[in-house]
Each structure stands twice: as C-alpha cells, then as structure tokens.
C-alpha cells in the first residue's frame, strides 16, 4: 500500500512504484519461461495429429458409445483385487510408517543427528516416486501380479502417512507427556500412555485418507502388470474393445466416488 503525492494531491495506490515494477517483472519472467519451455514441447509435437484430434475424439466417442454391460460380470473379481491391493497396501504402509514417524518427529526421535535424517530421507524417497513407478520396479523383481501391487502401494504410502503422522507427533501437548513421565513411567509407557492417545485420531484420519487415495491409484496399477482392474483396462485398450473400456471407466469412477464418500464420512466421525 502506498500513498503517492503528485501535484500536491495525494492518491492511493495498491503498491509502491518499486513493488509494482517487481510484480510486472515477475509476470514477464513467467511469460518468457512459458514460451521457452513451450518451444521445446512444440519441437517434439507432430501438429498434424493435434489438429486432427477433434475428429479422433468424435470417432472414439462413437466407438465407446453403448457400454458393453455383459462384460460387467467378469469385472467383479478384478475389482475385488483392486480393493484388496489398496486396503492391504495401506495396512502395510501404516505398520511401517508408524516407527518411521516416531524416528522423524523432533520430540520423539532417538537420535536427531543420525536417525532423524535417515527417517526423513525414507519419507522423501517414498513420496517422490509415484506408485506406478514403484509397481514398474516391483513387477520386474517380484513378477507380475497382485503382490507387486500391494507392495508398491505400501511403499508409496509410507512417505505420505509418516510425514503427516510425524507432524501430528510434533504438535502434541507436552504437558500430558510430562505428567506421565512424572509418575515414573518408562519410555515405552510414556509413548503408550502419553503420546499414542494424543495422535490416535490423526492416525486414524490419515489412514482412511490414504486408503481413499490408494483406491484411486490401484485402479491403474494393472497397466504395468501389477494386478487389479487396470489389467482389464489395458487388455481392452490393446484389443481396441472400446465398449468394454467405457464399462471399466464407469466402474472405476463409481468405485472412486464411493471410496471418497466413505472416507469423508469416517473422517467426519473422528474430527
């Protein structure tokens, strides 16, 4: 906010001249960065295909048009597998994330010079790599199938759960911990009676939230061979069976919406 005096009259401006110039320079920089990046993308794009897209889209839509509902009967088992991948993967993740979160939180870490950086690195590494890439990696190691999917979801979720959990641990009320310590409790007892009850609601909320995300992610793991409904999706796309693709997409959407609804209800109950 600035007041500019000009010809003896005072007028109000939102920013001083210097700030105004800085903001405009920022916009200019962003525009230049966009154009530079865009040139590289444009070089690698065959624009004829892009211009052709509306016709392609109309064509694809007409091929997908009446969904092949008879295919639905074959989808229940893959759907069950998908839900299992998400649920068991989430369970695996929360079991592994809890100790990592305790090592990463400033107030509970056993050693802030050695253990904490390792825990933080595990969290970052797990979060930076998408579950589909974890799955790609695990399929080459463990072989295609549902196990690779479960482990992929688990490894990807460790970082997410541990990060939110350790932030919750750092925000606990220290007085309760102190009160339990004052009774002469051992470290394990302090953790069980002073810390765990305080973070349980956050822990439950985080698990359900991640489960909801994992349902969404496990629907595509089949694209790289890690089980679930994505396998059928991939096969149908490869076979150009577009009426089946539309059934699968509808099933995926309804599952995702349903899991979102459950997760929202459960989280409301906790908060």
């Amino acid at each position, binding site marked *: 906010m600035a007041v500019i005096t000009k010809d003896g009259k005072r007028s109000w401006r939102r920013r001083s001249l210097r700030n105004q110039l800085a903001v405009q320079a920022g916009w200019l920089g962003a525009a230049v960065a966009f154009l530079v990046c865009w040139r590289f993308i444009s070089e690698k794009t065959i624009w004829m295909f892009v211009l052709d897209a509306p016709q392609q889209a109309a064509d*694809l839509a007409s091929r997908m048009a009446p969904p092949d509902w008879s295919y639905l009967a074959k989808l229940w088992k893959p759907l069950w597998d998908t839900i299992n991948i998400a649920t068991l993967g989430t369970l695996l993740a929360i079991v592994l994330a809890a100790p990592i979160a305790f090592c990463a939180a400033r107030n509970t870490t056993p050693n802030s010079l050695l253990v904490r950086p390792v825990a933080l690195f595990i969290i970052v590494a797990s979060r930076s790599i998408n579950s589909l890439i974890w799955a790609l990696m695990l399929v080459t190691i463990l072989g295609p199938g549902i196990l690779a999917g479960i482990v992929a979801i688990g490894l990807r979720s460790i970082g997410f759960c541990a990060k939110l959990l350790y932030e919750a641990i750092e925000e606990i009320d220290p007085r309760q911990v102190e009160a339990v310590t004052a009774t002469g409790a051992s470290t394990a007892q302090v953790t069980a009676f002073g810390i765990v009850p305080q973070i349980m609601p956050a822990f439950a909320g985080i698990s359900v939230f991640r489960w909801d995300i994992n349902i969404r992610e496990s629907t595509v793991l089949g694209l790289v061979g890690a089980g679930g409904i994505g396998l059928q999706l991939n096969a149908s796309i490869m076979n150009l069976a577009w009426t089946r693709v539309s059934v699968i997409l509808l099933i995926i959407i309804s599952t995702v919406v349903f899991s979102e609804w459950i997760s929202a209800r459960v989280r409301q109950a906790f908060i």
Partner: protein
Amino acid sequence: MATSTASPSSSGGVSWRKAPFIADARLRWGLGIGLGAYLAAAAGTLEIDWLRAWEGLPRGRQFISAFFPPDMTSRWNEIGEGILESIWMALTSTMAGIALSIPVGLGAARNIAPPPVYLFCRALLSVFRSFQEVILAIFFVKLFGFGPFAGFVTLSLATIGFYGKLLAEDIEDMDPVQAEAVRATGAGWFQWINYGVQPQVMPRMVGLGLYRLDINFRESAVVGIVGGGGIGATLNTAFDRYEFDSAAAILLIIIGIVLAVEYTSGLIRKRVQ
C-alpha cells in the same frame, strides 16, 4: 477418562485401565471382527505366486546394489533429454493449468458465482479430478499422438481440477467484510475481485501453486510410461532391459529434483506468508 474404566481390584485398591480409543464397545468389537473377516476373505482369494516372488529376490538384491553407485554416464543422453522434457512439461502445464483454473475456480465459489455457473464449474472440476492422470494420458496420447503435448494437456487438466477446487474453497472461506468494504467504494466486478478477494487468497495460492509444480513433475514421470513424453519413457525402457543401474540413476535424479523443488518452495512460502 479413567473414572468409567476404574474398577475395584481383588486386593481392595483401585486399578486403572487405559480408556479404549473407540468408546462404544459394540462399535469397537464390530470393527475388529469386520477387519478380521475382511482379512480372512482377502487372504483366501488372493492369488499370490510366492515361488515367483522368492525367485525374484536375487534380482531385488541386484537392483538395490545398482544404487551403489548408480550408472549416470552410459545412458546420459536419454536421461538428460527425458529429465529436461519432464521439467518443461511440469512448468508449462502448471502455468497453463493455474491460469485456466482461475476462471473455473471463481465460478465454483458459492459466494461469488450465481448458482447455474457454480453448479457447472463444480461439475467440471469433479470430472477432471475423478480420473487418474494415467488414464487421461492414455486417451490424450490416442488423440494427440505420442510425445510431450499429450502429457502437457493431461497435467494441465489435472492441475485445473486440483487448483480450481482449492481456489474455490479458499474464496468461500474468505473474510466477507473486506470484500464488502471494497464493494462499498463503488468498485466494479473486476476491481472487486482484484482488490477485495485476490489479496485474501493470494498467499495460500502461491504455496499451493508451488506444491502443484512439485506434483506435476512427479506425475510427468508417470505419463511417460503410457507415451506422454518425459522421463517415464526412459525409465520404462531401463526396466524393460533390466538396466537397473540406469534406472537407479533416474530414480535418484527424480528424488533430488523433488527435494530441490520442495526446499525452494518452502523458502518462497515463508517469504510470501
């Protein structure tokens, strides 16, 4: 907490037991039994090839040893090109996505938009959000052909879904008094948005924009697997050829870039707020 669970013990004193997390005993037991039943059902129907997994373990060890040290050099050309393409895609799609999500987000805020516009924009946002990036990418690769353009469109749409929703929610949570004060001066609609609404939501939205840049970079690694350009294609090839040391190099580079983006965005957020 303790009074309800305290009970006289046999020695005549009062013993204390920790209150259970779920107070309702029926719900507690119901959830426990439900979880047990589910786990039994899941374990009974899973078809896991343990033998194949066991045989894969040496390969897993080989993969882990590939990280010490990773092989950056022998495929450096492909890796460098893929990483740069991912960065271009992440930057352009974040900027385009945010620019497009501003009108949609304004339209999806209940306290600004008239009801028909509100419903339309909300529906648009939930459609963009309900599909996984990879599924969108498959379709855009079909429509636009292989290459980064399909990835750019995918990530832009996903950004609109994410950013537009959060922007709308932030506008709905704003302080109406400030916006009203600007309106009372006789400001037009654009002036009202620019001086009454925008300053209130700006600090949080800058932080979220940087967060989305981070997500878009990570997702750009995935759209490449289905042909949408970026580092994902290089990574996929490395795994297909069992070149674990090149794959390890790519993964480490991804982790490094995500760390760098997260660190700088933390610094910028601190300055803005």
